[in-house]
């Protein structure tokens, strides 16, 4: 490609259009990346960057020796993997069921309702969940009591808490997740169904041999792209639902970063933890995108 002065002149306005956005992401995304160096320092919020004391990998060693660090890593991965698995199956089932509906008004109403929780924040939904699951006054435990069962302390019980996270996460997101599968379902070649009917296949056989293979590429794509989320347990949700009673099963890397960093003001330790998380996540995202490109020809843009 040779330098083309005419084309260059013509494209100058494009550079100007992109400039404001570029400056802002350099300031608020790239400079903080450079700020990751404080993970290798003994950074003090008071003296700031004026007096710099380097301490090598001390912050990382400190982290690994923290009691409960392994538990937090395990919680994060356990919660994420369950969420990824649920996020892959529940929306597909919902999309398959919705796809069988022939009454358009009914279909649209159901969609409107199941998409809705996606648009509320975890502050709102967390407030609702805490109220609904409350052992003394929550509606769920009132139902359990009326059935003669003991009330369950869903949000204060380490056996229940991770599953409550997964269930409520699906409550918020499964409807929105169905959008992509519904779109994929409409693109399946209708003549395949006609051919299978002639061959005498019932609805179930059609679903198994045509519909599911038809959306398999999208499912694999979603799975590979979700790899990047293995170290995200969902900060907003956990932060708004957990309490000290369930730290053991519910504390994740992001909540730990917050507590060490902003509540205990150990900026360097918190940044070290953030750096580990960013690097590992980046590796997973990179790997996921590589697989998605390799096997599904997916590109971000």
């Amino acid at each position, binding site marked *: *490609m040779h330098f083309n002065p005419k*084309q260059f002149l*013509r*494209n100058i306005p*494009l*550079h100007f*259009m*992109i400039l*404001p*956005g*570029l400056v*802002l*992401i350099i*300031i*608020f*995304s*790239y400079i*903080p990346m450079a*700020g*990751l160096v*404080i993970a290798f320092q003994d950074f003090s919020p008071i003296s700031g960057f004026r007096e710099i004391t380097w301490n090598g990998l001390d912050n990382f060693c400190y982290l690994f020796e923290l009691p409960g660090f392994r538990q937090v890593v395990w919680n994060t991965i356990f919660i994420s993997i369950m969420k990824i698995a649920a996020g892959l199956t529940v929306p597909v089932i919902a999309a398959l069921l919705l796809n*069988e*509906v022939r009454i358009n008004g009914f279909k649209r109403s*159901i969609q*409107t309702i*199941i998409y*809705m*929780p996606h*648009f*509320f*924040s975890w*502050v709102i939904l*967390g*407030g*609702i969940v805490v*109220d*609904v699951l409350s*052992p003394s*006054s929550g*509606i769920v435990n009132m139902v359990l009591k009326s059935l003669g069962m003991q009330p369950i302390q869903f949000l*204060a019980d380490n056996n229940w808490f991770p599953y409550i996270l997964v269930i409520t996460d699906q*409550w918020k997101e499964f409807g929105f997740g169905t*959008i*992509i599968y519904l*779109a994929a379902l409409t693109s399946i070649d209708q003549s395949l169904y006609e051919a299978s*009917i002639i061959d005498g296949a*019932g*609805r179930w056989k059609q679903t198994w041999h045509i519909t599911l293979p038809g959306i398999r590429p999208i499912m694999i794509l979603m799975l590979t792209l979700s790899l990047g989320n293995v170290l995200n347990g969902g900060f907003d949700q956990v932060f708004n639902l957990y*309490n*000290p*009673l369930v730290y053991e099963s519910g504390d994740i890397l992001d909540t730990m*970063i917050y507590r060490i*960093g*902003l509540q205990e003001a150990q900026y360097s330790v918190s*940044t070290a933890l953030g750096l580990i*998380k960013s690097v590992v*996540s*980046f590796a997973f*995202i990179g790997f996921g995108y590589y697989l998605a490109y390799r096997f599904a020809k997916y590109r971000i*843009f």
Partner: protein
Amino acid sequence: MHHTSHAYRWFLRCNYVILTVIAILCLFPIVNILAISFSSSAAVNAGSVTLWPVDFTLSSYRYMLQNHQFIQSFVTSLLRVVLGVSVNLLLTILVAYPLSKEAATFRSRTAYAWIFVFTMLFSGGLIPGYLIVKEMGLLDSVWALVIPGAVPIFNVLLMLNFFRGLPKELEEAAWMDGAGHLRTLWSVYLPVSLPSIATVTLFSLVGHWNAWFDGMIYMRSPEHYPLATYLQSILQQVSLQTENVTFEQAAMLNKVSDRTTQAAQIFLSIVPILAIYPFLQRYFVHGLVVGSVKG
């Protein structure tokens, strides 16, 4: 498709029932909160409220509308939404248009695209991000809630994929008529991009209205909290007090806190979203699918 066996007709009936139950389960907690907000405290504490208000009263709403802090946070959130959505929309369009050009016509495109996309994959994290906002002197100002997220990369990707899907002839015709890039963007691209613009506006609007974490870390005084942060702080009060106490004590505290006013606040803060949702819903499904799933 017209092959309807006996078993399939049964499946269809069950399907309608299953989907209806799923939808009811989705809505149930929200309707429950709404019913609590319109009920008297006594009825709520007696546990007699499920889906319909008992002893209908507006007293919690009256109480909330006299609550100075609530009103102030509501106004802060409105201001944040107006500023934030305008900035987001302007920058989304200004960044997406150049990036939607082919690398052959706009050679720097690939480099720019990587610079933007990389920020989706890797970030400096909580503390370095906080420090830069502090160094810029933005703490305690509404701009701390608007400027750091001024370029929403996900929206840029949706928008640029939409732009790329537009027929090339549109742009060529504009150039023949002597229009430059700005003119082409303004008079040719934007008018045909309304579904996508509606989608990214919805996402940005909902994002700003719901955001609470940045308010919590960047606002020093609670008077400057946006609504979501204020709400978060009052809903978390109970659990903050319960550090190092037993579960029985926590349950007691839970009982005395006023459930009806909390329910009213929760409901008031979702009213704006409920109000815009029906108008934008018909766009976002289309906009999202066009922008994210390609050929």
